[in-house]
């Protein structure tokens, strides 16, 4: 379609280069003069969105790698320090982590679009297969990236996924050892995952170039599914497609910004805020939402090898799609039966995703099996059969005819599809949380926090009182290892002056050394020091606490979560509800009861707590009325203590929250205005096309 370029630069310098390396002509013929079908709808802008997301992931990834340490002992802390100390580190990390989710969200829409409009059909088979390869590479990259923060989910996700290869007959165990570089997932594994996570995106970029090349040879498919024939069927890529894509991208950025600034942890798993611990497995190991359907397929097969084979098969089958469906009509728009089955297939995928997030028991297993059969039946039975029996409706003669025949019902369909997608997205997203806290324990009541919502700010008084409670009560057992004394004087914190922070630091004894005599010594704390843990190491902490090590509290409000349930999590997306952790911590602090209720027995050495999963908690009731006196006249009650210390711990978990929300508001405001401007510009440009 884009034959030899007739592009002739007028500038002599450009001419000189063009004769020797015709790169301007290539760019011109590919991205300026390139004829685009004029009837493309907005599902087609996801190609541009994906290009942008790939570039953004590489850019933010390269930057994060400048601050990240790929070592089993340091990785978790380095990620925390990126978020706390690096200039805009929180922003870059959120962009990269949420960006991965957005990337998959966009690629799924891109793939479903291809499926619906038959974009895999002759002559675009190679284009499609390259796409499947990109998708596989994305899955590998996303998985390895998830491992890098070295949290509990990272570690155990890595263990579980690498163990998939142990299903291979004869060589399985050797392959797994080879992947690990050790006897178990450990430092060598982390190192190689980091190396590959850095490498693969460039491989993806390479295959994307091939993908676009193949696209430009075959020409773009379009909603009518008929090839462009005359000039009237197409418009030049620039400005028409460029501006339309730019508008699509700016709308997508609004959606993206919602996550970056207001819901950064919505799509992640709370367990990944707990440092990796090879000795304890999380109750449920759940992959990121974008792998859930395949995870569900894996689990529904009661045989290890067959399960793994089916899971990979579910992706590989996509590559054979051009031959499985050899119907002559391309677009499902004109295939009444294929259209219905397509939507059934979409629902099957979403339900599989939901099941992947549920514990593998009872009805979920049965449903998983049925849906797995449906998934494969769509490709192996329905599509080949439809090609034979279906009578498609007549397709328009040309793209130009299709444009003229545009019905008025279009907007309504688009709206309903958008709605369906939003609900499906919410279902997917929330289902990750659904798998949590199934172990029992009442759902903690939602509290009102000053830091909730887009305008949320920490209540300074509460932070100062909370610090006092922490110092006088919690610090006897728990450390605060990611908070430095200097942080107390940071903007958005408890509002102390630097001198006050230094004075508080000086109250602590910090281990230092060795000195010139080669000895360790103690000195008064300095602002740069971190709140010390009360025990020299984890073993000592265990001994002093009846076998259970009190966790560090720096991240506790992010590392705890509980089930919100359907449909609550769908609303949570819109209300930006992010307070599971604080609600939970507050509830546990208040949930102690002197005696277990009748009929409930709890193990020796533990205490009854209404909100703790399983109700038996090793920690004795830490707070009682009148224990701490406040200077500002706040009531000396457990309720008040719990509220204040939870606020303080929330700040300890995310000291940059105020900055995040403030910048988020500015970005949001800008993006909305920009998208509106883009929309009108796009309309003006396209006015020339008709």
């Amino acid at each position, binding site marked *: 379609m884009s034959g030899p370029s007739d592009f002739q630069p007028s500038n002599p310098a450009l001419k000189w280069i063009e004769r020797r390396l015709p790169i301007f002509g290539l760019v011109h013929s590919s991205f300026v003069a390139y004829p685009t079908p004029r009837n493309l709808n907005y599902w087609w802008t996801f190609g541009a969105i994906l290009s942008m997301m790939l570039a953004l992931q590489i850019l933010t990834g390269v930057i994060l790698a400048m601050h990240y340490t790929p070592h089993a002992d340091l990785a978790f802390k380095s990620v925390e320090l990126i978020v706390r100390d690096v200039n805009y580190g929180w922003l870059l990390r959120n962009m990269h982590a949420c960006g991965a989710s957005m990337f998959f969200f966009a690629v799924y829409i891109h793939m479903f679009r291809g499926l619906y409009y038959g974009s895999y059909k002759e002559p675009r088979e190679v284009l499609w297969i390259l796409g499947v390869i990109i998708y596989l590479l994305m899955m590998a990259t996303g998985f390895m990236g998830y491992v890098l923060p070295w949290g509990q989910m990272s570690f155990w996700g890595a263990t579980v996924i690498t163990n998939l290869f142990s299903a291979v007959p004869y060589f399985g165990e050797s392959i797994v050892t080879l992947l690990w570089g050790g006897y178990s997932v450990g430092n060598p594994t982390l190192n190689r995952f980091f190396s590959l996570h850095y490498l693969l995106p460039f491989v993806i970029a390479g295959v994307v170039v091939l993908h676009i090349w193949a696209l430009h040879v075959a020409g773009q498919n379009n909603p009518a599914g008929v090839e462009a024939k005359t000039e009237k069927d197409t418009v030049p890529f620039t400005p028409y497609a460029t501006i339309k894509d730019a508008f699509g991208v700016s709308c997508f950025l609004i959606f993206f910004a919602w996550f970056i600034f207001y819901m950064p942890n919505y799509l992640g798993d709370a367990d990944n805020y707990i440092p990796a611990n090879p000795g304890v497995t999380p109750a449920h190991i759940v992959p990121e939402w974008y792998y859930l359907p395949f995870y569900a397929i894996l689990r529904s097969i009661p045989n290890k090898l067959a399960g793994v084979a089916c899971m990979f098969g579910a992706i590989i089958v996509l590559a054979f799609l051009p031959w499985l469906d050899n119907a002559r009509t391309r677009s499902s728009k004109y295939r009444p039966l294929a259209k219905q089955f397509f939507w059934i297939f979409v629902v099957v995928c979403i339900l599989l995703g939901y099941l992947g997030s549920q514990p593998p028991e009872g009805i979920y297993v049965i449903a998983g099996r049925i849906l797995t059969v449906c998934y494969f039946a769509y490709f192996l039975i329905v599509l080949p059969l439809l090609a034979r029996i279906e009578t498609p409706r007549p397709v328009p003669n040309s793209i130009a005819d299709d444009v003229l025949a545009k019905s008025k019902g279009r907007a309504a369909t688009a709206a309903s599809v958008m709605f369906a997608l939003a609900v499906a997205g919410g279902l997917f997203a929330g289902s990750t949380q659904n798998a949590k806290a199934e172990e029992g324990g009442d759902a903690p009541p939602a509290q009102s926090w000053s830091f909730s919502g887009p305008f949320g700010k920490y209540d300074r008084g509460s932070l100062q009182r909370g610090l006092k409670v922490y110092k006088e009560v919690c610090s006897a057992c728990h450390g605060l290892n990611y908070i430095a004394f*200097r942080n107390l004087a940071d903007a958005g914190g408890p509002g102390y002056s630097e001198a006050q922070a230094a004075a508080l630091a000086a109250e602590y004894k910090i281990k230092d050394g060795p000195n010139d005599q080669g000895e360790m010594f103690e000195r008064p704390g300095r602002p740069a020091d971190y709140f010390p843990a009360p025990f020299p190491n984890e073993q000592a902490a265990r001994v002093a606490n009846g076998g259970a090590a009190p966790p560090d509290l720096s991240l506790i409000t992010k590392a705890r979560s509980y089930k919100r349930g359907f449909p609550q999590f769908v609303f949570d997306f819109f209300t930006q509800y992010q307070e599971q952790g604080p609600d939970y911590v507050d509830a546990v602090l208040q949930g102690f009861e002197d005696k277990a209720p009748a009929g409930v027995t709890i193990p020796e050495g533990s205490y009854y707590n209404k909100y703790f999963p399983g109700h038996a908690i090793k920690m004795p009731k830490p707070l009682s009325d009148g224990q701490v006196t406040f200077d500002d006249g706040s009531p000396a009650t457990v309720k008040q203590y719990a509220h204040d210390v939870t606020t303080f711990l929330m700040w300890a978990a995310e000291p940059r929250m105020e900055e995040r929300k403030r910048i988020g508001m500015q970005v949001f405001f800008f993006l909305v205005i*920009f998208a509106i401007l883009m929309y009108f510009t796009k309309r003006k440009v396209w006015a020339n096309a008709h």
Partner: protein
Amino acid sequence: MTTASSADHPTRRDFLFVATGAAAVVGAAATVWPLVAQMNPDAATIAAGAPIQVDLTPIAEGQDIKVFWRGKPIYISHRTKKQIQEAQSVPLSSLPDPQPDSARVKAGHDQWLVVIGICTHLGCIPIAHEGNYDGFFCPCHGSQYDSSGRIRQGPAPANLPVPPYAFLSDTKIQIG
């Protein structure tokens, strides 16, 4: 994108295109800012650059120690009478970077020389008590500093810098 209107008749369309373009430029610039700002030292690094205190009692006359502040080596020399004498008697006109010794030490603490031990040529670390001037010698390209840390010979253009410091007592200084 091209507009059909002529320059002396700006239309609403021109305004729209210019506004959109301007917004895109503003957005791009605002996006680049954090991507560049992240390269600056992070908060932990800045906090680690806080002033340090050094006890001078263990340093005997004619000896010197090296301490680190903000990742840079700082030489603290306990100068001998002879060294002080030499440093004070050099005619300023013979120095490439003229500075009297009194400007390089604290008044009343003549015996203590505190300098950043980084050669002003290309950043190597000079060796103390070497060279022709009873001071420092940088082996990299042959710069020689005297007992006041002033450049006397070689390619370095300037004297060894004196870091900000103050005497907390006769035997204790704070650097930074």
